[in-house]
């Protein structure tokens, strides 16, 4: 008989209690994994941002547009290889619950600046030459069972009216972090109609996306762009794409912080649950520990026994939780609208954190019972009535 066998037998002494504790840990790990996945999904845009792209927007607020005429001036700044632009179109597809990004873009340049949206040459040419053509991400095509040649009709809100588009391309996300849920169509097509219906809003773009040659020059180039439009009616603010994405997240930082805190509170709660189980177990075995000490077992042996039992329970619970987290996250990713969380998957860091948390729970939960077992004198242990 090895000590590990004794640990295992001790673990199974109160099968129901051990089972419920393991189940509790597993549920906590699932909840932890899910919350962390939501947090990492929230940050997916930041992770996907490119170091050699800058975003130029209206200095006062992102919701105010910039003149189209800025494009030529920005292009002349040294160190810039390409400039494109986009407008947030919004609109409703099918119904209001169907959310994904719908953007009016410069069809000629958008794919030069976003090489991670992989599109065949033929699809790109077809998209450029047809004014009401659109390109959609592969995830959107899959979700709505759409294929090339199909029509997509949007009910406009920022840009009122019915807008009919023909799918001429389905882009594939190049990287794991690339958003595959965007719908892109001609800014020119939108602008033509706006010119007729509300001319005051025409020739305006939401933001410029600037591709630069050297990411190390981003600060300098940003400053040069903003200087160009200093004291104009539409001053600009240029920043790296990463900073731009982080700015978006800042508005929801309280929610993300709350989720982060809750995910660790869950770990804390389950630590108390396992701690309680271990304290009860150690208390019930006070006399046995006295016997073992009498037989010559040292504090090191008792520490190994108690911590080992705690670690076995937390490892089984953690393992079970992780095992369940994968299909549950996968299930969630199918149920939640793609547009909300384009990248919703269990990240390696979440798995590492969950494993570390399980080990930490096992170790910390055993500290108090170990202390108690070691500090109880043998003669007091024999007198103990549990």
């Amino acid at each position, binding site marked *: 008989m090895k000590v590990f066998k004794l640990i295992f037998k001790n673990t199974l002494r109160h099968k129901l209690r051990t089972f419920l504790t393991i189940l509790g840990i597993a549920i906590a790990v699932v909840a932890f994994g899910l919350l962390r996945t939501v947090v990492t999904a929230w940050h997916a845009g930041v992770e996907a941002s490119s170091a050699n792209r800058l975003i130029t927007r209206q200095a006062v607020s992102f919701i105010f547009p910039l003149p189209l005429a800025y494009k030529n001036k920005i292009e002349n700044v040294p160190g810039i290889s390409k400039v494109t632009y986009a407008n947030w179109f919004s609109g409703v597809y099918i119904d209001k619950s169907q959310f994904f990004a719908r953007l009016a873009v410069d069809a000629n340049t958008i794919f030069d600046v976003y090489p991670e949206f992989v599109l065949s040459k033929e699809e790109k040419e077809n998209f450029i030459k047809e004014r009401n053509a659109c390109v959609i991400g592969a995830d959107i095509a899959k979700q709505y069972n759409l294929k090339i040649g199909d029509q997509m009709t949007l009910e406009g809100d920022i840009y009122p009216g019915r807008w009919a588009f023909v799918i001429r391309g389905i882009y594939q996300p190049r990287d794991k972090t690339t958003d595959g849920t965007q719908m892109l169509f001609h800014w020119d097509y939108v602008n033509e109609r706006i010119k007729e219906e509300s001319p005051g809003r025409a020739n305006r773009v939401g933001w410029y996306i600037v591709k630069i040659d050297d990411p190390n020059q981003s600060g300098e180039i940003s400053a040069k762009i903003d200087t160009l439009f200093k004291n104009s009616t539409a001053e600009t603010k240029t920043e790296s794409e990463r900073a731009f994405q982080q700015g978006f997240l800042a508005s929801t930082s309280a929610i993300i912080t709350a989720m982060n805190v809750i995910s660790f509170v869950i770990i804390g709660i389950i630590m108390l649950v396992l701690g309680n189980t271990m304290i009860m177990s150690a208390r019930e075995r006070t006399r046995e520990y006295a016997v073992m000490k009498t*037989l010559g077992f040292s504090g090191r042996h008792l520490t190994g026994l108690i911590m080992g039992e705690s670690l076995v329970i937390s490892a089984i619970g953690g393992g079970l939780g992780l095992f369940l987290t994968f299909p549950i996250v996968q299930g969630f990713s199918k149920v939640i609208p793609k547009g909300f969380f384009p990248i919703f998957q269990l990240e390696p860091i979440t798995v590492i954190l969950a494993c570390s948390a399980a080990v930490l729970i096992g170790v910390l939960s055993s500290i108090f019972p170990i202390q108690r077992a070691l500090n109880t004198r*043998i003669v007091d242990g024999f007198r103990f009535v549990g």
Partner: protein
Amino acid sequence: MSSIISVKDVSKTYSRDSFSIPVLNNLSLEVDEGDFLALMGPSGSGKTTLLNLIAGIDKPTSGAITVGGTDISKLNESALAKWRAQSIGFVFQFYNLIPVLTAFENVELPLLLAPLSKSERKKHVETALNVVGLDDRMDHYPKQLSGGQEQRVAIARAIVTDPLLLVADEPTGDLDKNSADEILTLLDRLNKEFKKTIIMVTHDPHAAEKARITRNLDKGYLV
């Protein structure tokens, strides 16, 4: 016979809250190798305390205790634990077997601390269980054994390391008369046949009759 246990001017006082309770008072005792000593006395006389001090599971307030040439009153906790593992076999009133371990595993428990291979441990355990007549029950758990059988497993656990000294605290206190007789016969055999030095605490005169020497304690003094 040479003296194996020497207790010199030993006192033991327990502190409970703000009270000091003297249990043993300047007590001296010599036990020769191969003796079977019964310690008798009324409840609270200090017999279990004396046994605990000789077995190294408690420390005297003053005085010296030498067992097999080792002054155990000077050993620290970890040295004392090591010494107990090598030198002392314990038999308790309530057997104190580990309920999740079989008879074999319970007897094997002290051997886990010894540098023995699995096959050597097995041999020792089988021999010990054979001595107590339970070699056919080695795969049984404590709850599957009678009280007398449990105590015999406890005795096998006590002798499996071939200790210098066997200490038994009311070994028949929780048993019926027949089982108690079996245990006393077994202890007698261990003393006579295997030359084990035994100190037994008991309040039962019938049990004390099996011992070669009987000493009485009263209020912390040997009388």
